């Protein structure tokens, strides 16, 4: 059987792991050659599937001794190529470290292994009347380890923050296999510097996260869901600003542009008009009396700002249906083209309308199709290119349009990745975003944490 593997490396790994947990055949390796990012792929030398922290440490020791790169991954839903293998690497796949170790209802925490699917965490919390708010779009598939390594966001960022805000403590295996714990169960306090904050969002380049203690909060008592339909993008953006100016912090403030709304209607058939410029999904949660009052005000504000229609869900089933307009956006767009490139930019909320207009202009200038949806509450937009990677001339236009979008983002005081990470896809744009001094300090830290440079090399920066 054909193998991409190095026999000596395989022998060293099977000395510390059962042979069944070391994958080396071409067909096994092929499925680990990519993540959720379009276009990028590379076969690894082998894939290991550890089941314990000790096994993770043992793999890292083998890799350190032999100077073999290690690319850590979970479900592989990343959208910036952060878990795409590099040549000759060991893929360290943590999906079998998938136990919920403890749900502590006295201290409102949950301790989990990195391979637990995030949706399971949300469900276990709900089972005991508690709430784990971060809900990245990939929540049903992605693992919590990947969420922490990328500091994933989601639809609730404005009110509830992002993954970082819920990480109390981490256990991390360092490049040499040493295990350390940073943070405690007690509201995130530590003596010394907050190392935890350094590991969160470091995309597997500083250490391998092997255990996570998460903060849970009480489940809100009530929720209201509204859908706004607008003929002008600026009217939708002004509505969002007016809601926040009225001291209301919705838990969800999402939007779809016209291209996306058309695709969603064709896919989910929820009765969206296909001639609107923007659809907004607006949800508030909290105490029933407050939710009622805020929902009524949001409806009024939207109408005052020229909404064509505002629909309010009367039942939970209706709320789910309205919310599905946003939740299905990516799937609805994805079925329209062979290659879908989901971008991830964030601008200050006051610049949203300008940003959306710029994306539309750039799409027209370069003759490419871009559907835009995203999180209006926190300014995080996902311009989504519908293209075909086999069409080289179109790909060149996509590339040019993407560069222009990043430039506009930086000009509007935004950031080139809100929640997907840098990985490979954003690496060329990072120096311009953070400046040479920050780049130098990051490289230095990487070298100090991982002297042999074996942890996810070539990601974030070279």
């Amino acid at each position: 059987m054909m193998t991409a593997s190095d026999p000596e490396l395989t022998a060293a790994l099977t000395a510390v792991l059962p042979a069944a947990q070391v994958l080396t055949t071409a067909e096994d390796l092929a499925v680990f050659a990519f993540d959720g990012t379009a276009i990028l792929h590379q076969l690894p030398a082998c894939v290991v599937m550890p089941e314990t922290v000790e096994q993770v440490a043992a793999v890292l020791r083998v890799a350190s001794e032999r100077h073999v790169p290690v690319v850590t991954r979970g479900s592989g839903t990343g959208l910036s190529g952060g878990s795409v293998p590099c040549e000759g690497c060991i893929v360290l796949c943590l999906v079998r470290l998938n136990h919920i170790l403890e749900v502590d209802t006295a201290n409102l925490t949950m301790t989990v292994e990195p391979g637990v699917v995030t949706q399971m965490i949300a469900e276990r919390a709900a089972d005991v009347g508690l709430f784990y708010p971060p809900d990245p779009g990939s929540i049903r598939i992605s693992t919590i380890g990947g969420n922490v390594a990328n500091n994933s966001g989601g639809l609730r960022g404005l009110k509830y923050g992002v993954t970082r805000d819920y990480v109390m403590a981490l256990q991390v295996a360092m490049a040499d296999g040493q295990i350390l714990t940073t943070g405690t169960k007690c509201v995130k306090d530590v003596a010394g510097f907050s190392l935890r904050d350094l590991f969160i969002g470091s995309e597997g380049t500083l250490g391998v996260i092997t255990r996570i203690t998460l903060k849970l909060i009480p489940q809100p008592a009530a929720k209201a869901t509204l859908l706004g339909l607008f003929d002008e993008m600026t009217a939708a953006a002004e509505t969002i600003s007016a809601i926040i100016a009225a001291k209301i912090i919705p838990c969800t403030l999402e939007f779809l542009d016209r291209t996306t709304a058309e695709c969603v209607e064709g896919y989910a058939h929820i009765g969206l008009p296909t001639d609107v410029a923007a659809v907004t999904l607006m949800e508030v949660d909290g105490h029933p009396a407050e939710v009622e009052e805020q929902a009524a005000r949001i409806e009024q504000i939207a109408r005052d700002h020229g909404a064509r229609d505002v629909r309010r869900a009367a039942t939970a089933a209706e709320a789910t249906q309205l919310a599905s307009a946003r939740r299905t956006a990516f799937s609805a767009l994805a079925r329209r083209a062979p290659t879908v490139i989901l971008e991830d930019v964030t601008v200050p909320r006051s610049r949203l309308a300008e940003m959306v207009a710029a994306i539309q202009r750039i799409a027209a200038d370069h003759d490419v199709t871009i559907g835009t949806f995203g999180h209006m509450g926190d300014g995080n937009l996902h311009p989504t290119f519908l293209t075909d990677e086999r069409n080289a001339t179109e790909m060149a236009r996509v590339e040019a349009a993407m560069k222009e979008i990043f430039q506009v983002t930086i000009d509007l005081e935004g950031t080139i990745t809100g929640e997907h990470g840098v990985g490979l896809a954003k690496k060329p744009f990072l120096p311009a975003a953070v400046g040479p001094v920050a780049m130098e300090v990051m490289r230095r830290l990487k070298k100090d944490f991982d002297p042999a440079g074996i942890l996810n090399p070539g990601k974030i920066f070279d």
Partner: protein
Amino acid sequence: MATPAVVPATVAEVAASVRHAAAHGTSLALRAGGTKDRLGRTTTAAVSMDLSDLRGIVTYEPEELILIARPATPLAEVQALLADNNQHLAFEPPFWGAAATLGGTIGIGASGPRRFVAGAARDFVLGMEFVDGRGRVIRAGGRVVKNVTGYDLWRALVGAYGTLGVMTEVCVKLWPRPESQQTLAMDARSRQEALQLMFAWSRRPEAITGLSYTSANGTLWARVEGSVAAIRTQTESLLKDAGRGEIMDETASQQLWEQIRECGGLQMLPGEILYRIVLPPSRVDDAVAALDKLGLDRYCLDWGGGLLWAVLPATMPAAAVHNIATDNRGVAARVGSDAEDTNEAAFTPLSEPVARLNQTLRNALDPQGLFSPGRLKI
């Protein structure tokens, strides 16, 4: 305290001063309002870098929910401006003195009673501009909630006690100020009864934003914030649950929590030392019992049991308190008694591998250890 002082007024002057200090190997004690001197160990820095002239609000955009200010901007000034716009810093920072500044607050990572529901100071810092130990200006993070561009180096400056770098601008996330508040005050029969109610209430969906217990009068305090209509029904539901107690109106409630915010309302008398101990709420009962054996005089629980302010005899070795914190999976900080107290044992010691990574981080940002040496023991 280090003398004499350099007094930079701009980021360029800070950078130039740091470069000069780096060239001469002169260490710098960073300070402005001077309200946090009793927190942490006394620095051994040769020269004081007085940041008082780096003050003023750079940008305030209420609709964006952000404020950017220079570090020596008085906290009181920030709060007054926000209050005019019905906004606030949701982490409810303690002052430790009227001259408190925004930079000092971020520098020690100080959070008040609302922290257990709203998050900590570090959760509200979106980005900053700072000068590293080589005198280079770094702008990091941003002004948006979602930003994952590389390592969040700058977050380590939050709670670093003036080590690692000199903040020159800081961007914080704002929140609408709740319309009103009320507090239920209840005489608890015992600490255990108070803790049981605190645990039960911290799991309820009501907007409970303060849960504290004062040992001196055995009172449990539960604050509810929100719209006038919503808080009334919620405090009444808590009252029904507790079976007794009184509801304090908005003004009385505000005054109470301003006191609790500052060291749990406890004052150190001569011969006493105050400790701040953060631990999992489920361990606080054991920790108090252990401290009782060391002569615990009075204490206050905050954050639904996650924070314990404890007054102990000054003769008690700090190591004993740190051991109790460690045994209960927490960390303690000793508050220095006066200017003579160098507060050597301010912090619970770090484990060896964690200490090493702390040093690695410090070497990356401040390789010569110029900033506030000795303040944090790593």
